[in-house]
């Protein structure tokens, strides 16, 4: 809403979480950018639809909306798979993507599971054209073996086809404009070689289709005097993808398109900011053998009003008011996703107060919301930031935010066939929503101590109770868990750079524990899918005047997927069974970046070569998902 004040706040609350623009690492999509920090954890069977969880506050069973686009929430993700790559937005549009790793009440919208801000870079004052192209693949394709060996199993290799993005922007008088187009092509068969258990789950011809995203976006802004501005944003993201369906241990190959139109006006009317959004998605799932296809349309229309009053530069009072209509529509006889239409109208009103004072800042916000004739929910957050010295500060947040259940969680339905080829048998698994599902509440607090200096670091402790989180059980209804999970983590992260004999080093680490509320240590079903510990290390150094190298280490502890456990008695293929555990893993990546200068009409031409998983260790993030091994990706970026 008011971007200036919001920006001031964000610089304080989220600086440790910015993936820096000049990082010399892998960046294909927004999720790659976010993965530079240990706060963002990703769940994906295919690596193509990376569902993001900020610090374990969300999970795959019940993805929560955490993405902010142009100052307002973005909600229409296909099948609730909240992936930052499934937004009408491309990485080329941004410099930084701040994250708020805690439940937060923004000036427009509530984010009970943290917030990722897709913030556009300022539009250039002169005509500028930027572009980048890239492609690559994992090694190990059985290209020759397909002809020379008999009975070869399907292979699991991933390839990024020719992908890239382009952007043109400029300014005419008080008007600025930007046009963006991007395409991402990804090919993955997506299951492990020789894994006959996995082969029983899938329909190979369906899942060998390529995944892709095509993004187009247009922005127009007008800037007047005294902070007055109007901006319009329109974008589209069309996709085909296969991924695990939420709640169910089954897969779907789906396609569709996501679109948005967003308008915002700052201070055209004194003391009032206005935001209007209209988001839509069309999703369809193709038929597999023995499984019905399905489709649905989703739209979210919202208006956000923000009367605000500033007292000098130190105090700001605002009254967020929003009205949002969420609608699902399906064709008659639809058998997948939804079997009926759904319409929800939500009112929300809030009160925010922000105060800045010497050496600190204070924020208090409350929010009340009501959907239709349902119950009224209250949320609140309190945040204080105090400078403890010239080079350090401490920030404390307590909050309690509610998240009403979505239509998909209450009325969704999925049925997928599992074809057991060796037995010539087809099993149909069905998962249904729970109409009586209640809202979940996330309550807790965190404290972060930050030091600034030659080496900048932050230490944070964090504890939130997620009430009535949703569990998924195959072949059963979605149900809630009570009393909920306590997410606790401690984190140390150092994002600044230090020089050791010419070696530029950055170190990041995340250490966390997750326990149930009664404090009996277990791997809870919800959060066992996220690693308890993560470690990330990155070093970069200059190899020559225009040549830079980087090395990155990333380690994660094991994860547990109880739905995928198979007893030996039920394992008709190998008899060995599986406990649903994925072992810990670590990977070593490296990159070489060569600045090529100006070549013909291309300025700032830069070539980057990424060698991922250099030691060729097999890595899997999902029990029946793809494996990763050594991969090579090349990039070219340029400015015209």
């Amino acid at each position, binding site marked *: 809403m008011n971007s200036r004040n919001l920006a001031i706040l964000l610089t304080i609350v989220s600086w440790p979480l910015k993936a820096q623009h000049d990082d010399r690492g892998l960046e294909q999509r927004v999720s790659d950018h976010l993965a530079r920090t240990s706060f963002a954890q990703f769940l994906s069977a295919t690596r193509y639809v990376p569902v993001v969880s900020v610090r374990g506050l969300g999970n795959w069973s019940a993805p929560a909306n955490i993405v902010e686009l142009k100052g307002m929430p973005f909600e229409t993700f296909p099948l609730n798979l909240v992936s930052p790559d499934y937004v009408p937005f491309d990485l080329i549009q941004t410099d930084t993507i701040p994250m708020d790793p805690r439940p937060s009440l923004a000036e427009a919208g509530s984010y009970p599971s943290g917030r990722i801000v897709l913030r556009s870079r300022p539009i250039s004052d002169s005509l500028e054209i930027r572009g980048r192209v890239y492609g690559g693949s994992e090694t190990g394709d059985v290209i020759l073996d397909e*002809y020379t060996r008999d009975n070869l199993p399907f292979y699991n290799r991933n390839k990024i086809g020719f992908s890239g993005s382009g952007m043109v922007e400029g300014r005419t008088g008080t008007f600025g404009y930007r046009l963006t187009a991007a395409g991402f092509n990804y090919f993955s068969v997506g299951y492990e070689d020789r894994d006959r258990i996995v082969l029983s789950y899938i329909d190979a011809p369906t899942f060998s289709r390529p995944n892709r995203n095509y993004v187009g976006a247009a922005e127009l802004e007008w800037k007047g005097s005294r902070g007055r501005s109007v901006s319009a944003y329109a974008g589209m993201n069309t996709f085909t993808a296969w991924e695990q369906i939420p709640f169910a241990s089954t897969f779907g190959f789906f396609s569709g398109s996501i679109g948005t139109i967003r308008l915002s006006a700052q201070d055209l009317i004194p003391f009032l900011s206005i935001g209007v959004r209209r988001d839509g998605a069309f999703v369809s799932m193709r038929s597999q053998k023995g499984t019905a296809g399905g489709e649905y349309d989703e739209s979210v229309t919202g208006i956000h009003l923000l009367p605000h009053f500033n007292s000098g530069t130190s105090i700001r009072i605002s009254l967020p008011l929003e009205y949002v209509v969420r609608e699902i529509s399906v064709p008659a006889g639809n058998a997948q996703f939804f079997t009926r239409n759904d319409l929800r109208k939500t009112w929300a009103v809030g009160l925010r107060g922000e105060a800045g004072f010497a050496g600190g800042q204070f924020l208090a916000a409350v929010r009340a919301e009501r959907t239709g004739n349902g119950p009224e929910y209250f949320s609140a957050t309190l945040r204080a930031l105090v400078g403890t010295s010239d080079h350090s500060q401490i920030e404390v947040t307590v909050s309690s935010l509610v998240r009403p259940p979505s239509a998909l969680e209450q009325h969704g339905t999925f049925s997928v066939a599992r074809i057991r080829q060796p037995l010539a048998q087809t099993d149909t698994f069905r998962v249904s929503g729970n109409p009586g599902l209640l809202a979940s509440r996330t309550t807790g607090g965190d404290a972060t101590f930050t030091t600034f200096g030659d080496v900048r670091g932050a230490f944070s402790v964090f504890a939130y109770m997620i009430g009535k989180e949703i569990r998924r059980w195959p072949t059963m209804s979605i149900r809630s868990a009570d009393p909920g999970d306590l997410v606790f983590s401690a984190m140390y992260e150092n994002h600044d750079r230090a020089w050791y004999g010419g070696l530029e080093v950055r170190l990041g680490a995340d250490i966390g524990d997750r326990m149930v509320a009664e404090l009996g240590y277990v791997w809870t079903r919800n959060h066992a899918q996220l690693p308890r510990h993560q470690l990330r290390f990155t070093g970069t150094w200059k190899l020559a005047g*225009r040549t830079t190298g980087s090395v990155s280490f990333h380690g994660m502890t094991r994860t547990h997927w109880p739905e995928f456990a198979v007893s030996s008695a039920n394992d008709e293929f190998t008899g060995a069974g599986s406990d649903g555990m994925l072992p810990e893993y670590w990977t070593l990546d490296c990159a070489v970046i060569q600045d090529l200068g100006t070549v013909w009409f291309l300025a700032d031409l830069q070539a980057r070569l990424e060698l991922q998983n250099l030691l060729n260790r097999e890595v899997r993030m999902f029990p029946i998902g793809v494996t990763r091994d050594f991969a090579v990706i090349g990039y070219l970026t340029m400015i015209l």
Partner: protein
Amino acid sequence: MSGQEIDWSSLTISVAGQWIFPQKGFGTYWNNGPGLSLSVDVPVNTPVSLVASATVSPHSVAETPKRQQIPPVVLVQLGGGFLVATNQTAPLGAGFGIQLVNNTFIFSGPAARPGFENAVESEFGIAFTGLVTWKSGILPPLQTILWYQPILVGLEPVAVFSIGLGIRLE
């Protein structure tokens, strides 16, 4: 941008004929073949140059019991990397290089299978090269090339080895 600007006017083109020897499983089922290569290099920081290369070579099917189910292949090697050259101004010079190579296998004929089992596939390899350059002062500089590239393909990696003779168009 920092550091010395690349002098693109120093870019050099080389053309060479090669004889390509497939190794391991590749060599078991496919024959050796002639190759034509084109490479360009440009100094970035003496004695280091950036180098890019392209080589095309056809390989017929070897006489094995599986001959009928194997299609002939055209191998296209596209590489990029660094080259370290010594005695660049002397009549006789040597160079050593390393390149990351993308290998495209183009199968053709009735045994090639389109669709999911692609008739055109690619895979990466790492090539180690050795060069000897002779400048007679009369002819364009002549260059002999040794090339060994493990290709990270398949259940068991294969390789190609090649020798070649070419000229540099400086």
